[in-house]
């Protein structure tokens, strides 16, 4: 019998399994599909501190960024997951936006974020192909990139104490006197000391199996991928960092159901340019929206006019696991003992996966977590929880 069953082999589940096993726990990860087959396989791999307001989420992100660097160093290359600490450049369209951005950067610094102010004249030194006319920006050296599918697959496999069972759907939870004692799956029961719900955008359903409510909803995002670009004479990619406009910051924290886009543009190791992502609350609707793709293209070309002649060859969408207060759910469920949640990371589940895994492992082993988990409490949405 494993010490822990993790529901979901996405990035978050993989990180939970990794850190729990590192602490010596035996872990079984179950996924009804494949490793990284959920949102982890249909998003991007941004590990960002730049896009977060100071607060509990930024605290998570700063620590997680450091953990990503450690994980990448441990994994090495090959065998790694394309961790690339390329840094993020946020550009401001106007002096007014630049003032707001600079002010935000000042506050972020107090949370441990490194920032460099970039004047309008210096922008070209960072991004030679950036459109003229931006008022300036802020460079965030901690922003990094990973290949999330590879990262999830490799972290799950890192320790011998982890068993991965794909194609195994959790259909119920085993309980004994109000305590969760394992999971019921299509392929039989798996008794365990504890269960971690890392079922991503489906985590609400998994929680419901234990009779508790988690308000996790999908927020759709589209991503555009270009043709692979011809190698450039200077040997450097056309787009050197993660580049986006400061409008992004206001979008992330938005409650709007309508469409919002603020394209993050970046080059990938495969030679393509990724442009993403939009944000919409439209349920689990996969219907492609050309106006959304058009908008992403417009923003990318607005940032880098040379992209106008580059072709898009692919578009895909994914569903971010979204909580009403834009914070993830991390911790033991006070309503059902033996049940832990690691979900609701919205557009930051890749970036925040290591810290989430680490904190869950602390709880599972009875150690003191590095951060205060109160803002992430699973029962914070129920009226009674106050």
């Amino acid at each position, binding site marked *: 019998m494993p010490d822990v069953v993790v529901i979901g082999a996405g990035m978050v589940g993989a990180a939970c399994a990794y850190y729990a096993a590192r602490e010596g726990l035996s872990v079984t990860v179950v996924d009804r599909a494949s490793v*990284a087959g959920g949102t982890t396989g249909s998003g991007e791999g941004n590990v960002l501190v730049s896009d977060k307001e100071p607060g509990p989420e930024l605290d998570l992100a700063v620590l997680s960024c450091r953990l990503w660097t450690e994980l990448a160093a441990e994994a090495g290359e090959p065998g790694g997951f394309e961790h690339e600490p390329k840094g993020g450049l946020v550009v401001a369209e106007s002096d007014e936006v630049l003032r707001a951005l600079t002010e935000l950067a000042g506050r972020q610094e107090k949370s441990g974020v490194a920032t460099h102010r970039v004047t309008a004249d210096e922008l070209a030194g960072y991004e030679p192909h950036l459109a003229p006319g931006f008022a300036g920006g802020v460079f965030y050296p901690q922003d990094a990139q990973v290949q999330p*599918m590879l990262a999830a697959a490799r972290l799950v496999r890192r320790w011998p104490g982890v068993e991965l069972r794909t*194609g195994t759907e959790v259909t119920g939870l085993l309980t004994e006197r109000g305590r969760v004692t394992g999971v019921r799956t299509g392929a039989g029961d798996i008794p365990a000391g504890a269960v971690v719900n890392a079922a991503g955008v489906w985590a609400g359903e998994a929680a419901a199996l234990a009779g508790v409510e988690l308000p996790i909803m999908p927020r759709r995002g589209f991503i555009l991928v*270009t043709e692979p670009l011809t190698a450039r004479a200077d040997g450097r990619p056309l787009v050197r960092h993660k580049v986006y406009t400061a409008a992004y910051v206001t979008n992330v924290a938005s409650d709007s159901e309508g469409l919002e886009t603020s394209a993050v543009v970046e080059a990938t190791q495969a030679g393509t340019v990724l*442009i993403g992502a939009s944000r919409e609350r439209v349920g689990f609707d996969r219907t492609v929206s050309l106006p959304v*793709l058009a908008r992403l293209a417009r923003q990318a070309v607005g940032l880098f006019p040379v992209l106008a002649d580059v072709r*898009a*060859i692919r578009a895909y969408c994914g569903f971010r696991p979204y909580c009403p207060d834009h914070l993830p759910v991390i911790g033991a469920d006070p309503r059902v003992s033996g049940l832990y949640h690691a979900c609701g990371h919205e557009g930051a589940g890749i970036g925040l996966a290591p810290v989430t895994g680490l904190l869950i492992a602390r709880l599972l082993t009875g150690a003191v977590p590095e951060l205060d988990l109160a803002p992430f409490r699973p029962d914070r949405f129920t009226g009674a929880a106050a």
Partner: protein
Amino acid sequence: MTRSEVAYDLAVVGAGPAGLAAAGVAARAGLRVALLDAGARVGGQYFRQPPDGFHATRPGALHHGYARFVRLRDGLGDTDVLLGHRVWAIEPAVGGGFAVHCLKGGRERAATVAATRLLIATGAHDRVLPFPGWDLPGVMTAGGAQALLKGNLVVAGRRVVVAGTGPFLLPVATSLAAAGARVVGVFEAGGRFTLAPRALTRPGKAAEALGYGRLLARHRVPYKGGRAVVAAHGDGELTHVTVARVDAEWRPYQGGHETIRCDTLAVGYGFTPQLDLVAQLGCEIGADAAGVPAARVDRHMRTSAPGVYAAGETTGVGGADLAALEGEIAGRAVVADARGVPAAAHPAAVRTEARRRRLAAFADALLRSYPVRDGWTSWLRDDTLICRCEEVPYGRVKEARDLGAADARSIKLLARPGMGWCQGRICGEAVARLAGEAPGPPRRPIAQPVRLGDLAAMNERTSDDDA
């Protein structure tokens, strides 16, 4: 971007036999019809024509049933024929109908065609399987060799091996031979094509098969069953292939290998319907008799999406005769639906329906006679490319499986097969089969590469309004 002011009653995508027939029927009935095709000339893959610049006096010499093509072409009536139009996306238009987004001409300028109804007749492309050396220059698809010949009057090579499975190998071999290539052998991995099962025998097809036999004999082309090209060799370009004797599952027999010198290999394992547009439109997709995804249609060729029809190979691989007939049926249904009368009421309906059933049964029997057998995977080596675009070898696919990729999609996410230029059109089926799955319907919201500048210029106003 240029918005077309003309709203057509029907836009037909694909000017092969199905699209030509449908457009003709609808246009002659008085509908305003646009017929779009990526090619420079009508005819599609089957009736592919050489450029006018050749002034061919016997253009039919390379085609079976050329007279029918001429009838279809000349029967287009007032159809607006929009050649050089590559459709990259179709979306339902505000207020009904559809916006068909195209890239026009060699410079790929954006254009949009508006229509009330749609017929998707986008045909099929060669189905290929990976094997060692299949990405050497000189290895081509059978359909590609045929296209080069019919469409450009260029013979693919001097010494040619034709291989794969299915009766299509025969016209490819005979036309290459007739055009001057030395065809050193036709290697059919399944059984030699003789005649279809008795109950299904069609006089026309039987004669066609005999005709190929005679032509192969005249050009002294050996035609062998139970043989497969399991490797291609050459230093930078193809110089020879390994042909193996294979068992019923396509596993090579020990020692049954021979090496054949050639500069060209034309290889094909059947066809895959082009379903990008029907998938974009949300039409229900099933599978043809070979298990390959194909659009589901009712007996009037209506798909599950209102206003969208499909005909020809889009609904399953069945050849030019069946495609033309399906186009005719679809065209009549479009006319009937546009007028609000029952489609079955047409006097020709009963006859065409019976004929279609017969042709479809024959096509299905053929598909079932020439399936792809699992033994092809035994031809692979760890360094054999599975995905040509992203250069993903078989070894990396296996590694992805070991990492926990339990299905084709996850293999793609971990090892990148299908992520490149062709978007899995070439390797998709192989990857699915390596994952132990039946190939699934495509999901390609962008059916042709489109410039970000063109994409950005699209719907400028409408999409900004909903900000």
